[in-house]
Each structure stands twice: as structure tokens, then as C-alpha cells.
């Protein structure tokens, strides 16, 4: 197995070598064994090779397996590399005897061979994979520079920095912090007024109070919902070839409401996995179960509904295990997992939990739940009051009429999960090679033996599974969730592979910190806002993001946090920020998806309707990106260019690319041009001098004022553009008004066009597209 690029980072992040030379199993040995040996000598009995006849093959993933007798000798004789067949075979010169076999394409480096040999010499100790051991909240480590500390996070970050002889950066200036934390918490830049209020707040806890205002804003829920919707693979269409539109936006709104109400994460979990099984389930708890109705439905003629119902159940099992437990469970759909202790049979035991709901790849998406939207609720209340007011001698005709009116109110529908009646329950069988038609032994609901058990006597249903996911004994969920929050705030997870915590994932950069954060989540009873607040109020977060000489070379990904985070905006933030800065952004929340302008593609979906849409008008053209209609076969192009996924399946981590196509969007897409035009009008109205106008536009995009140099450069561009437009009045009119519309009467159009040019540059600055 080739070493991958991250080896370099692991080495960088590895604590200094200990005095004893025995390599660490967790950090140095298991990755080698996992990458190079487990495929044939791991958990999967069907693929296992070697070993004594009748032994079921040689296992190197367990201590017992590695020490079992072979036909002559033993794979690993602790303390005796010379008596260990493993050492002999990896150093073998005969290609027929060499391990791993040359034809596998996997080759150990001499460094790896040396490590394995030393490990055998040192006693060949095995330890359980770190993430399968329940975390214990460690004490805060000792540090020298105590006055730097603001909370527990900092002790771990600083301890690691001090160990390497590094020191953190000073705190970022207030305006940089204001923009950073506002974008991280709400996805929107602060308004100049909000930033100034924070800048001028002289109280000692000014920053914390600023954070609290952001956490309390409705934009917070929208921003964090967006991230959850990637995991939930939420989209407004059913997927596959014809990809018809699907009404399921009630789920999106539920997620926004849940974040804004600061619903504890365990409750949020129970509702989405099994809200329908909660006693007296509310509208919201039923809507929540649409989480697993975001799977795709195939309406293509000639398809077998059972095949695609099965595909949806597979997706639910995989998504659940990935989102909550960071486990690449999907591998076990076809065979016993090659790296992690999950058998083929155990896969179908989890599958069984999801295999008994009523939905069955139907075109009508049934079962649906209908509920009244906010607009209808006052009307219903009024009619219900009238009904109640009929008093002791009700007029039956009048009462019936009122009831009919109430029932006739237009309902919003959302596909939900509902269990089958006991008599209709499906039998779950192991599917050979993941083929839904190749059925083997029957299995019942259960969880993999490597994890904590289900509570005794609990009913075997989704609710029990949901409780198991957020059980205090679950070693993975609190770590996986804490890691995901960390990734959102700091740009990279403590475990960089936030989607994979198993043997093939990367090791955490700060293992004790991760366990401490997982412990905090439990201690705080899954209080999400409190947890995010903990992260953003740390000194580690509040550092300047300036790179000191040598640090790029040493830690290009800023994993050690010797400076503050600086990462590119998500696709949604790029759009929302441009609209916010220009004043075009609508803050209308919730409701059916909207269709912001995009060019016609003149294409239809296969066997389906046209993919072009009629643009929304009025404020719906300028809503936050998360309300954009998400059609899986043709997602909104300007968002996908900035790495938004198509949401066909659960997306655990987005790329953060930097491409020329992105430049074309923010320079030329009419949406961004309109934003530049609106920003230019704001700039001209804000001040009486050119310098004042430039300053205002700059602050709207970047919160901070420009430096003298930046201001000069913008003014120089304005003058160049003005001269250019003065001799081209037609171009000036077009550039200043298409598509935004006519400028106020009396506006000097060449000047407005010149400021539009400046605004277009402001919206494209590197700093605008990044958190600073």
C-alpha cells in the first residue's frame, strides 16, 4: 500500500519520539497493517488467506490471530523478530514469498518494514482502535503561558504548541473578529452598524455578548441548517433520470427551527430517526422523519419498485452510520468489512431497523403528512373558537360546516416515515454481494458486536436505535459530532477525515482535545449553541490569521492552530454575502423553494420535463441560498461551481476548491453583477467624496476600512473606469443598470458605472471570499 500524502502531516503532528523506540501501535503500526495486510488478513473471513489449514486463514487485525500457530512457526513471536514469519515475509527477496504479494500493487517502504520489526521486538502489543473505546474526559493539560488561556480548548491547543516550541498569534483585531465570527455563526457578514457597536463596546465581555447576539439571530439557524442539509441529502426533487420535483421543504424548515430553538442534539436525533414512534408525536416530530425520506425515488418506466425501495433502505443505513458514527458502513453491504469489525450479517441487522416503513419507492411519495402552515393557523384558530363558541346547544349544521372548513384548509405535505402494521412487516435477509435478489439467512434488528449493546428489553425499532446512537456509552457519536462542529469553525476536523473514524480514517491531531470536547457535549446535555459558543470564544479561535515565517512550510493546513483559521466561504455564503453587502438580500424565512435567475440550458431531464425554470420575482429573487430550489440532476450552477453537492447522497465533507470557473461566476453572473450595481448605488449615496464612497463599499464587503494603499488603488480604478465610460455612454448605461434597473433620476451614469466596476472588484477580492 502506498503511503499517502497525509503521512507527512501525521509525522508533523506526531508528538516527539519517546525515549523507548517501540513504535506506537495506534499511530504507526495499525495504519501499515490496515493499508497493507487487512485486505487478506483482516476481519473478512471470506477473503482471508494463509494460516494453518482449517484455521479460517491468518488474521493480523487481532492479537490472538497474529499469534496463532501456522504450519511451522507463528506470524508474530512477541520480542522475537527473527522467529516471526511476518518479519521474514516482508523482508523476503523471493517475489513468490514476499508479502504483500507484488501483484497486489502494495509495497512496504523500508521505513515501514523497520517499524514493524521494531514493534515485534518491543512485544507487538495490540490496542483496540482508538475511536471504538469510549472517551473519558481528560483533565486539562498543564501549560506555561497561562494568561493566554480563555477556556478548556486553549489548554490542549497551547500544550501542543508549547511542546513543539511554537507560540500562538496575538488576538485578531476587533473588526476582523467581528466578520469572522459573524460569518461562522450566521453565514452573513455583520452590518457596519453591528460591527461598530461591537468595536465601541468597552465592556470586558464585549466579544462574548457579540457572540450571544449572533447565536440568537434567526440567521444562525439558517446557516447551521444548511450544513445539516448536506448530511440529510435534502433536495427538492426525487432524483434518478426524470428527477421530478418533490415537496419536502417542510423538513428544511424544521431543521432551521430546530437550530434556532437550540434543540438538544439528542432530541434532534430521536425526532429525525424515529419521530413517528415518539408518544403523541407532534407535527414537527413527524416532519423530522423526512430526514430519511430524502432518499431518492425512481419513477423511470420499467424499474422494479422493490429494487429502489431496497436502495433507499441501504442509503438510510449507510447515512445513519456515517452521520452519527463516522463509520463507512457501506463496505459491509456486499461483504464483511475489510478493515473494521463489522460483519456482512451485522450490516443487515442495522438495515433491518429501516426495513419496515410504509414507503416503497412510490411516485406519490406516500406516506405523507399534511399540516397547516403559519398563515393558515390563525384562520383555524378562529374557526375552532367559533366551533367551541357554539356552546351548549350547537347547531349541528353550523358545526358541520365549520368542521368542513377547518378540514378544507390547504395543507402543506411532507413525506414521512411510518412503520408497517405488524401483520405486514417485511422479513430481512442477508443480501449476498449486496444484491437484493440474492437472499441468504434471515436476520433481525441488532447492532454490531464491536459496539455497546442495545438496552435490554427495549423494543427493536428505530426509536431504540436512535437512543443507542446518542447513548452516553456510544464511543463514536459524541466524538463525530464534536469533530464536525470543530470542522465548521476551524476549517479542518481534529480528525481530518471527518467522514471516517474507523481503521482507514486518519488519527486525530489532538486526541485528548477531541475526547474532552466529546465529554463537554455530553456534560452540556447536547446543547449545541453552548458548544459552538465554547469554540468561538476560545483564544485559539480569536487569534490573528497572519502566517508567520516558517509556519506555512511546517503546518500548511494549520492543524496545530498556531494562527487563527482562514478558509473559503461555502457556496451559499458567497452568494448570501454579496446580496447582504449590496443590500439586496431578503431576510424572508421558510416556505417553498425559490428560483433565483440562471441562464436557460434548453435541456430536459431524461423522460422528464424541462430543466429550465421561470425566475422568481420580487424578494424571492434575493433569498438566502439555502432556499434555492435544489434539483438533483441540475443543481443551481453558481452554487455547484463553489463545491455545493447535488445531494443525491449524503455529503459528509465538501471540497474547498479554487478554480477559474468560480471567478467567472463572481465576475459575470448577472446575480453578482446586480449586487455590484446595487452596492455602487449604496456607495454613491453614502458619502460626498470619492474616498468616502470607496470606504463605504469596502466596509460593506470586508467590515474593516481600507488601508491607504487599498483606498488609493480603488480610487485609481474608479478614475480609469470613469474616463473609459465617459467616452462610451451606452456601455455606461448598460453596465450600471442591467439587470438591476434604471438608476435614480439625475444619476451620473458614467460615474455609477465606474463605481459598479469598483464594487465588482470588491465582491471578487480574495479577502471577500475568505474568512479572515
Amino acid at each position: 500500500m502506498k503511503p499517502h500524502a497525509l503521512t507527512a502531516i501525521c509525522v508533523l503532528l506526531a508528538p516527539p519520539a519517546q525515549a523507548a523506540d517501540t513504535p506506537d501501535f495506534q499511530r504507526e503500526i495499525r495504519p501499515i497493517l490496515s493499508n497493507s495486510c487487512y485486505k487478506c488478513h483482516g476481519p473478512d473471513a471470506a477473503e482471508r488467506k494463509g494460516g494453518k489449514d482449517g484455521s479460517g486463514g491468518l488474521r493480523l487485525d487481532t492479537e490472538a490471530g497474529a499469534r496463532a500457530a501456522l504450519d511451522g512457526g507463528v506470524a508474530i513471536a512477541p520480542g522475537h523478530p527473527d522467529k516471526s514469519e511476518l518479519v521474514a515475509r516482508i523482508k523476503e527477496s523471493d517475489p513468490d514469498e514476499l508479502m504483500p504479494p507484488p501483484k497486489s500493487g502494495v509495497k512496504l517502504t523500508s521505513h515501514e518494514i523497520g517499524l514493524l520489526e521494531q514493534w515485534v521486538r518491543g512485544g507487538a502489543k495490540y490496542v483496540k482502535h482508538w475511536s471504538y473505546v469510549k472517551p473519558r474526559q481528560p483533565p486539562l493539560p498543564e501549560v506555561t503561558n497561562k494568561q493566554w488561556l480563555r477556556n478548556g480548548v486553549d489548554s490542549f491547543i497551547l500544550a501542543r504548541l508549547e511542546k513543539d516550541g511554537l507560540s500562538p498569534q496575538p488576538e485578531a483585531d476587533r473588526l476582523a473578529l467581528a466578520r469572522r465570527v459573524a460569518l461562522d455563526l450566521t453565514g452573513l457578514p455583520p452590518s457596519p452598524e453591528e460591527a461598530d457597536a461591537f468595536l465601541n463596546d468597552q465592556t470586558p465581555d464585549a466579544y462574548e455578548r457579540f457572540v450571544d447576539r449572533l447565536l440568537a439571530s434567526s440567521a444562525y439557524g439558517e446557516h447551521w441548517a444548511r450544513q445539516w442539509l448536506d448530511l440529510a441529502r435534502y433536495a427538492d426533487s426525487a432524483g434518478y433520470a426524470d428527477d421530478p420535483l418533490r415537496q419536502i421543504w417542510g423538513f428544511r424548515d424544521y431543521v432551521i427551527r430546530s437550530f434556532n430553538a437550540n434543540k438538544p442534539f439528542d432530541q434532534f436525533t430521536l425526532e429525525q430517526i424515529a419521530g413517528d414512534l415518539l408518544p403523541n408525536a407532534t407535527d414537527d416530530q413527524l416532519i423530522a422523519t423526512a430526514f430519511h425520506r430524502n432518499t431518492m425515488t425512481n419513477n423511470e418506466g420499467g424499474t422494479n419498485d422493490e429494487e429502489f425501495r431496497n436502495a433507499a433502505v441501504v442509503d438510510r443505513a449507510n447515512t445513519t452510520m456515517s452521520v452519527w458514527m463516522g463509520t463507512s458502513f457501506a463496505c459491509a453491504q456486499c461483504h464483511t468489512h475489510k478493515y473494521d469489525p463489522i460483519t456482512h450479517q451485522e450490516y443487515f441487522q442495522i438495515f433491518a431497523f429501516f426495513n419496515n416503513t410504509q414507503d416503497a419507492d412510490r411516485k406519490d411519495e406516500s406516506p405523507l403528512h399534511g399540516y397547516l402552515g403559519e398563515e393558515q393557523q390563525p384562520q383555524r384558530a378562529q374557526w375552532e373558537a367559533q366551533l367551541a363558541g357554539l356552546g351548549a346547544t350547537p347547531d349541528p349544521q353550523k358545526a358541520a360546516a365549520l368542521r368542513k372548513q377547518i378540514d378544507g384548509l390547504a395543507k402543506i405535505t411532507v413525506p414521512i416515515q411510518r412503520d408497517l402494521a405488524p401483520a405486514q412487516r417485511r422479513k430481512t435477509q442477508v443480501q449476498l454481494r449486496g444484491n437484493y435478489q440474492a437472499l441468504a439467512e434471515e436476520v433481525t434488528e441488532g447492532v454490531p458486536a464491536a459496539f455497546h449493546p442495545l438496552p435490554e428489553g427495549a423494543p427493536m425499532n428505530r426509536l431504540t436505535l436512535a437512543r443507542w446512537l446518542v447513548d452516553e456509552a456510544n464511543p463514536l457519536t459524541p466524538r463525530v459530532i464534536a469533530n464536525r462542529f470543530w470542522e465548521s469553525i476551524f476549517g479542518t476536523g481534529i480528525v481530518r477525515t471527518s467522514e471516517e473514524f474507523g481503521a482507514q480514517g486518519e488519527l486525530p491531531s489532538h486526541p485528548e482535545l477531541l475526547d474532552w470536547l466529546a465529554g463537554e457535549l455530553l456534560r452540556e446535555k447536547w446543547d449545541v449553541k453552548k458548544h459552538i459558543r465554547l469554540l468561538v470564544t476560545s483564544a485559539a479561535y480569536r487569534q490573528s490569521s497572519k502566517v508567520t515565517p516558517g509556519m506555512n512550510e511546517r503546518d500548511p493546513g494549520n492543524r496545530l492552530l498556531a494562527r487563527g483559521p482562514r478558509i473559503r466561504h461555502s457556496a451559499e455564503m458567497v452568494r448570501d454575502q454579496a446580496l447582504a453587502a449590496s443590500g439586496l438580500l431578503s431576510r424572508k424565512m421558510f416556505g417553498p423553494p425559490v428560483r433565483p435567475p440562471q441562464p436557460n440550458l434548453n435541456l430536459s431531464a431524461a423522460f422528464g420535463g424541462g430543466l429550465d425554470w421561470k425566475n422568481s420575482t420580487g424578494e424571492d429573487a434575493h433569498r438566502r441560498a439555502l432556499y434555492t430550489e435544489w434539483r438533483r440532476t441540475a443543481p443551481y450552477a453558481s452554487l455547484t461551481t463553489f463545491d455545493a453537492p447535488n445531494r443525491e447522497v449524503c455529503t459528509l465533507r465538501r471540497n474547498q476548491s479554487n478554480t477559474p470557473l468560480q471567478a467567472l461566476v463572481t465576475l459575470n453572473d448577472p446575480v453578482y453583477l446586480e449586487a455590484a450595481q446595487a452596492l455602487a448605488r449604496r456607495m454613491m449615496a453614502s458619502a460626498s467624496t470619492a474616498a468616502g464612497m470607496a470606504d463605504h463599499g469596502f466596509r460593506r464587503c470586508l467590515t474593516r476600512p481600507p488601508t491607504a494603499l487599498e483606498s488609493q488603488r480603488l480610487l485609481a480604478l474608479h478614475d480609469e473606469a470613469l474616463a473609459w465610460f465617459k467616452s462610451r455612454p451606452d456601455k455606461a448605461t448598460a453596465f450600471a443598470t442591467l439587470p438591476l434597473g434604471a438608476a435614480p433620476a439625475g444619476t451620473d451614469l458614467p460615474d455609477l458605472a465606474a463605481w459598479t466596476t469598483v464594487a465588482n472588484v470588491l465582491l471578487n477580492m480574495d479577502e471577500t471570499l475568505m474568512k479572515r
Partner: protein
Amino acid sequence: MHPHFDLLQAQTRRAFLRSTGQFSLGAIAAQALLARDASASPAAVNPLAPRMPHYAPKAKRVVYLHMSGGPPHLDIFDYKPELVKRDGQPVPEQFLKGKTFAFTTGLPKLMGTPRQFAQHGQGGIWMSDAVPNFHGIADEICVVKSMFTDQFNHTPAELLLFTGSPRQGRPSMGSWTTYGLGSENENLPGFVALVSSGTQPSGGQSLWGTGFLPSVFQGVQCRSKGDPVLYVSDPAGMDRELRRKTLDALRDLNEAQQRELGHPETATRIAQYELAFRMQTSVPEVMDISLEPPGVLADYGAKPGDASFANNCLLARRLLEKGVRFVQLFDWGWDFHGTNKNEDIRDGLSAKMRASDRPVAALIRDLKQRGLLDDTLVVWGGEFGRTPFREGRTSGGGVLGRDHFPDAFSLFLAGGGVKAGLSYGETDELGFSIIEKKVHVHDLQATIMHLLGFNHEKLTYRFQGRDFRLTDVHGHVVRDILL
């Protein structure tokens, strides 16, 4: 000299050594992504910078012509006289046992081709009268009559063909190619998709999607009408001169930012804006077929301003000529069920082919004439074949159609290291099963990767803890058809 220059150079060099020392493409790409945060010189670590494959390639570029829907191979390439003889007889039961078909149940009736077949070229390749323009290129192509797939519905079959898996989420063949090879022209995308006949293929954008590979390897959908690449045109009122001035100002501001904070990402962004500026000229130019001489337009049957398959064939040649690695054409309308007269294997097929076989033949001749065919691989085909019997729903009507058939189909390859004038593989006398030289779609993928210079088992990318590849855990190179 820039204060960070030395440092960044060192970083670049280190990234380069690390990735080439062990030829791990996973490492290169991951490194390129990391290095994106770590280099002042994007050209040196640009994930799209040209790279050498595992060994000397026979094909340097690919044009894949996909007929979305599944062309009726029994009426084009796979001539079955016995089937003609037994036309109208019930299908022998052994061929139906354990099989499921998309739209056919019960006992269907065999249907011999109504088309006239003859042998063409020195290799005596059988072709029907549906493809008159293919007759003249018989000596350039290798027809594989023993293709098969696992999927009998369009979406999963197309996904399997182009991403190696019947479900969404995997990278497409073109993305794997640009991931492995980078791009030769830094002013154009390395992988371009062109769609004709007004409808997306069933597999949707996933067919040129990047799956879990970094998004820079995504196929760029170019259009022959309107902006060829989204937002490549300057808005009304802006022109090249003023755009240059604005980008100069933007660069100065970004450089100031970089001096202050020292983030290499900023340098990358400066470079990407410059590339975008160049693309604004180079893309419309390469996409403008009106620059072609009238004779060439006539050969292809292309008309500037159309969104036709013929235009896309000509565009493909222009793109390949400029260094684009992988051009993927999707043409809709090949699903010959017989539900309407356009789906009739007699007149319907002739009509569809009139707009199709000529540009394909023109493309192959054009590539050959320009000396590009030797190292350009051309592939023509669908996602599956069609049944040797009449489709169930339409069997009572006057329109002749066939159902989806995964067990056997035909496609052809040309150029790029493939033997020319060869007919490869055979189906049984009625066309129900392959009797020799079976080629699974994974084998086709392995072969395409091989021609591009890759061991398909080693072109991998680590995602969620596993090393993935185009051919999943399957695929054998079809060596018999290689030069």
C-alpha cells in the same frame, strides 16, 4: 522578490518530490489540494498540470460518443440471419428463465431485423443499411459485438458505464482521466461534456461529475448555443480592455492581502483570475465553429448556431486539437421501444441515423487527416443493447421496437491504439447470449484506461478510508483488440 517566495518554493518542491517519489496519484491530488494552501506558484502544483501516466500511452485523448437510450445493435452491427428466419416465433423458454425485462412480461416473439446487412471493409465487418456512412469507415474501426452490462434500466446502466457503479456518487471516466493526466491546455478545461437532442442523459450530470474526486476534475458542460461555458462572456457594457484594468486592480489588492497575511491560497486565486481572463477569449474561440471552412462544415453536416450532434462532433475535434483530454458527447433519442414512429427500427432508426452516422464518420476521417487518429481514442455506443424480441407493450402495434437488453450489445472503438477493421466477439445465433470473448463494461473501462497509459487497478483515490478506482474491484484489459 516576494518575501514568502523562498518559503513557498520550498513547499512546492517538497510537495512535488513527495508525490512523484512514490507515484501515488492519491497523494498527488491530495497534495495538490494541500499544496493549494501552500504554493505561490500554482503552475507547479496546479492539480491540472499535465502529468505522465503509469506507462507510455497509446491514446493521448478520448472522444466518447454516447447514444443515450441503447441503440438497437441487432439492426446495426450484430447480424443474426437465424433470427430473421425465426421472426415471429415465440422466444425459446431457456432464454427467458430467471430474466427480468423492463417492459416485457409473458412470452414475447422473436424479431429478426428488417434491415439489409452486408460486409464492409477489408475486415468484412457486418453493418446494416441504417448506417450508410459507417460503411466507409469500416477499415478504421473495431466493432465489439460481445459487450454486456449488469443493468437493464437507463440510469443505473449509464452510471455503471461512465462511473463504474450503478449508483450516484462515483467519479466519471473523464474525471478519472484528468485526475490522472491533468490538462494539456491551461486555457481550457481538461474534460468537456457536450449534450445534444435537447435532453440530458438519464444518468444526469453525474456522468461527467467528479464524485468524491476534487472538483477541479469535474467535466465542464459546454454549450453550442449561448455562453459556451456559463458566464464566460463579459456582461453588457464591459469589454476586454476594461476587464483587464479591473483585474489589474484586483491583483494589486490581492497581492497587498498576501503580503499582509502570507496565505498561499491568495496567490492561487490571483492565478485563477488570470486563467479565467484567458478562458474568456480561448473558450468562445474554440467553440466558434463558424471559423471552420465551409467544406468541413458540410462534411459534418454542422451549422453554426445549432445545438446538434453534428455540431458537437465538430466541436469535439476542435477541443481535442487544442489539448482537451476527454470530450464526452451525449446524444438523446436512442431508446427504440416502438412506442411511437420515431422509435421504429425501420424509418425511425434511419431518420435518427441521418443526423448521426455522417458526423461520426466525418469526425473519424477528419481526425485521421490531421494525423490525430493514431493517438485519439474514439468510442461509439450505448449503455446496453436491445432484445432479440419485440418489446411487450408495443408488440401488438405497427411500430417495431425492442426492449432493453443488458446481456449483449455492440459498440465500436477507433484510433488510439486499437486494431482497425476488426470485428470482435460473437453472440449466439439468436443474439441472446455471448458465445465468445465477453467484454463487460468494466473491461471496456480497464481498456480505455490502459490505452491512456494507466493500470486501472492503480489509478486510485482514497475516500472514506478506501482506495476507489473506476473499475471498482473488476475489469480486465481486452488485449486482443490492441495494436
